[in-house]
């Protein structure tokens, strides 16, 4: 099977899973911006993506993509280190056109996955997991996404950790997107520069959308209907309705 046995095939798996993850991030980030506009709207999305078959199926699919990408990342890295051999250069003068991120994709990826662990703990474990397994937490808050955003980012330490994580993700994507186009052979003399620009623009947009929400909530910003939504939820809870 060429996706396993050949170097280019393995890179194809890396890039296809990577691009699928980028598309997911694009969707996730646009969804997040809603939290800046309307608490009710955001919570509707959260309810829509709760514990129903399509959201759970998509989550399983995403997890599979991450696992594949992660396993291939280590596999490729081990092979590359072996190809490099054991003797190291005494002096190395890295050429200017070599991006730092391109040589440190594994390190950036590891930061990304650590951040992902924290993120799943902060949100997923309190939302979808609780819906799937009600004993795992407070059920009435499981679709109140905006509450968890406010809760998480009112802690400045979390905000800073998230910003570091997002910076690593930006670097990973800024190289990853054009690199995957190159890997898939969709680049060339002309498209190379175009993909570099597209990579930078797309990853910057994705990351800025995430950053905007984290920073806004950290500095105390709340959408206009925030208190109302939370009061309703609190009320229902008090009456034992949800």
């Amino acid at each position, binding site marked *: 099977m060429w996706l396993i046995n050949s170097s280019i095939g393995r890179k194809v798996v890396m890039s296809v899973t990577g691009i699928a993850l980028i598309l997911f991030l694009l969707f996730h980030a646009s969804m997040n911006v809603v939290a800046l506009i309307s608490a009710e709207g955001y919570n509707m999305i959260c309810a829509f993506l709760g514990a129903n078959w399509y959201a759970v199926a998509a989550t399983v699919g995403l997890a599979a993509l991450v696992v594949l990408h992660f396993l291939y990342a280590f596999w490729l890295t081990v092979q590359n280190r072996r*190809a490099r051999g054991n003797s190291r250069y005494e002096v190395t003068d890295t*050429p200017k056109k070599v991006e730092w991120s391109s040589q440190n994709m594994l390190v950036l990826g590891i930061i990304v996955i650590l951040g992902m662990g924290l993120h799943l703990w902060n949100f997923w474990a309190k939302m979808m997991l609780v819906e799937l397994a009600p004993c795992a937490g407070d059920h009435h808050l499981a679709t109140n996404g905006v509450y968890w955003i406010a809760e998480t980012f009112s802690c400045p330490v979390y905000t800073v950790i998230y910003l570091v994580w997002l910076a690593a993700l930006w670097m990973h994507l800024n190289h990853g997107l054009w690199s995957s186009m190159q890997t898939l*052979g969709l680049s060339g003399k002309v498209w190379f520069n175009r993909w570099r620009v597209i990579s930078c623009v797309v990853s910057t947009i994705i990351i800025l959308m995430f950053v905007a929400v984290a920073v806004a909530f950290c500095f105390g910003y709340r959408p206009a209907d925030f208190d109302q939504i939370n009061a309703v939820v609190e009320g229902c809870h008090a009456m034992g309705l949800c």
Partner: protein
Amino acid sequence: MAKNISVTVKFWKQNGPKDKGHFEKHEMKNVPDDTSFLEMLDMMNEELIAAGNEPFVFDHDCREGICGMCSLYINGTPHGKTERGATTCQLYMRKFNDGDVITVEPWRSAGFPVIKDCMVDRMAFEKIMQAGGYTSIRTGQAQDANAILISKDDADEAMDCASCIGCGACVAACKNGSAMLFVSSKVSQFALLPQGKVEAARRAKAMVAKMDELGFGNCTNTRACEAVCPKCETISNIARLNREFIKAKLAD
């Protein structure tokens, strides 16, 4: 006007692939700066021999930038730091300053075992070429020169790819020990021409399979190769190879 400079050469000594290897130093006094780097090493070897020491072993042949034999990693850059497009044999002492310590190392890559000092075995590239870097031709009557028309753009591009001299600097520079710039240039030089297109799919598969079998690494598009290539090959060749290879595999 040429001036003279004095430098310290810190060069790698290694007795065969299994040896650990070490650096030795030699002072070169009053070297005219219009001496080529390899001539300076020749002068150093004469001094070493005169003093009863073993000379420093390194590869070279044409000394005019066309054969691809010279292969020294100088102060952290394969072929030494020059304006783009020069081999080790095209490097001159005027690129250095009086008092410099010049560190000279071999290509360090598992695919290129050291034979002695800075002479490495690049037979792997020959094996990749033998796997598919040719066109099969039924010889017969000589063809009319204009029987197959080729556009100037394609001819130029194929020529640029064919100018890869197989020196291995790309592998030496790559943190992944990947030979993709070399292989892609060789695949491209044929794939761009009608005579080579016929076997393009078979060629791409065979050369990539050989490259993988010989243990070269997976390209992660760092671009270190194109930055050091003495023939200015670009990673657009790698994209072309990827395209050819993926197309061939999907067609199977």
